[in-house]
């Protein structure tokens, strides 16, 4: 993929070793503005590990992660802590939902605003004008996001009391609260019923179109992936085995083999 002007994320030959295990092996990937890119592959292929390397939860063994934030200068971010990656503008969700269980739904989203606000301990105690303004903006913006993912009526509920599908949507809202230019979703449809998956499908497209946030997603639901992705990368045993438009991927013999042909016919 040649680097275009509006490439947002560019990963080059990313490799991650766990002791003797090479979980990710020289994977390259790029995402441009306005794109929905999918990363697929069988369980254990190394997709989540790839996400963790890109978002700073792991430090990659080899390779480069470059970001080109819109209207800001490009940076090489491998080795950055995940809070810095998020502050730069890439936010993620987790495959095994990681919400703040004993905080309210609204508060979960408000945490996302943390890196866009500045109140410190002294400011919080004095509660001056600026603090109050930031706090008000945080609440308003969080409600706005809850409205977008359809959770506004559950705002005061504890996160742990939400049904599974709603928890996934809350994770998306929380990530969006950090004002990202790229959203990384790790199996957002896992555990959802067909109706919920369809709603999610629409939500993701809407995020791309109205919020102008590019999306990189890991997903097993082939119908969802084929429907909404512009491009697809396929991983198996840590290696990238194919990439291209949904149609090409569907007919790629290597991919069919990797999936034993059973899921790709969807």
């Amino acid at each position: 993929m040649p680097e275009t002007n509006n490439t947002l994320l560019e990963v080059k030959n990313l490799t991650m070793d766990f002791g003797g295990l090479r979980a990710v092996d020289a994977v390259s990937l790029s995402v441009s503005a306005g794109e929905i890119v999918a990363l697929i592959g069988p369980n254990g292929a190394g997709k989540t590990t790839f996400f963790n390397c890109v978002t700073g939860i792991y430090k990659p063994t080899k390779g480069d992660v470059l970001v080109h934030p819109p209207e800001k200068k490009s940076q090489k971010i491998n080795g950055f802590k995940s809070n810095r990656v998020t502050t730069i503008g890439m936010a993620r969700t987790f495959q095994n939902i990681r919400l703040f269980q004993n905080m309210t739904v609204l508060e979960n989203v408000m945490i996302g605003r943390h890196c866009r606000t500045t109140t410190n301990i002294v400011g919080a105690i004095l509660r001056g004008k600026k603090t109050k303004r930031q706090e008000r903006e945080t609440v308003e913006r969080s409600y706005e996001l809850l409205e977008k993912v359809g959770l506004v009526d559950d705002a005061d509920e504890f996160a742990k009391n939400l049904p599974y599908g709603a928890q996934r949507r809350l994770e998306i809202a929380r990530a969006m609260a950090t004002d990202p230019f790229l959203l990384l979703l790790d199996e957002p449809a896992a555990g959802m019923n067909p109706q919920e998956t369809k709603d999610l499908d629409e939500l993701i497209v809407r995020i791309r179109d109205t919020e102008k946030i590019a999306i990189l997603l890991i997903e097993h639901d082939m119908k969802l992936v084929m429907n909404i992705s512009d491009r697809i990368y396929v991983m198996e045993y840590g290696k990238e085995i194919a990439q291209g438009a949904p149609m090409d991927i569907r007919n790629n013999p290597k991919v069919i083999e990797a999936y034993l042909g059973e899921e790709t016919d969807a």
Partner: protein
Amino acid sequence: MVDNIKRSLLVALWFVFLTFPLMVVKVNTLKSIVEWRWMNMLWVAIGAFALSLVWRWAMARRQLKSKKAEQGEDESVKAGFATRLMEDPKLYKPALIVIALATIVFPLVVDIYQTNIMVLALIFVVLGLGLNVTVGLAGLLDLGYVAFFAVGAYTYGVLNSFYGLGFWTCLPIGGLMGALFGIALGFPILRLRGDYLAIVTLGFGSIAKIVIENWEEVFNGAKGIAGIPRPGFFGAEMNITSATTYTYYLMILMVVFAIFITNRLKDSRIGRAWMALREDEIACVAMGVDMAKTKLGAYAFGAFWAGLAGVIFAARNTYINPNSFTFMESALVLSIVVMGGMGSIIGVIIAALVLILMPEYLRAFSEYRMLMFGAVMVLMMIFRPEGLIANVRRKYTGRKVTTEDANA
């Protein structure tokens, strides 16, 4: 019910059998006879029977509750009395006024001994509120909290005996020293969690005491520092009674101050970040929260209050030695936080008053203090793991504003 009674009878029988040699048989070696104290047997039987019944009833109730929660019959329907008291202004306003009046007249109606004990209890309220931030809000278990308390107390003691600095100068210095030590000790343990954190902080607490004990030149070792002045009031001369009363009011002010500040922090960007860190560290950092800054902030803030409380403690006792800063004190403050309900301010205040005042007034208990704590803790964990008064999360209003914006 019949089944319960039957089982409780069996338990009673078993206990009678177990305690028989201890409670009933008594060999009088002087007269070489055996005394049979049958009355004791009766008491054991009745006691065991009653306890077993109560236990069974409580367990059944608990199961019923969790079953209800599972079926979705929400707790919110039957909000506890305490929660209602806090949320309904018609209830809490008069309650607040009564409490305020009671605290004001308290030292005027009781003698100096009582006031002095109350000051100690209030010191532990402040300690509880401080640790409540570190443990309850930020979820950082700290078993060496007493170290910061000692830092505060010895800051005053040392600065006073070497440089003659007064109480009011040392109070902020003590707090800041506490916070400084909080940060210094927080650094190496940033990455630790759970058991490891507990062990290391436990070590810090013991190290603090050992350093104080052995650094004779500065801390005067095990002999301690004596003759520390009580809090002054613009240089006015005060006898012991008025000085104690004065310290009491000072402490009340400080508690109010601590409540005010912790409350504000709880509902702020910082407080939320602390809670998120407690809930899920990886997710919290992935959402853009700086882990090191946030954790150190929590350590420093908790330690700050311990430092302040330490200065007042030194002033109240006019004498400090290393024995006031043992693991027992750390455990006591931690019990206060756990019992009060992690993160709940009112719960912590009540727990502090109960745990400090109870042994003072019920002298018979004080010997079994640790035993009682243990029992209370176990019972709490079984029946009310959320503490006496569960932390209620604030509801934010602001939705109206957004919908208006959307319509405009």
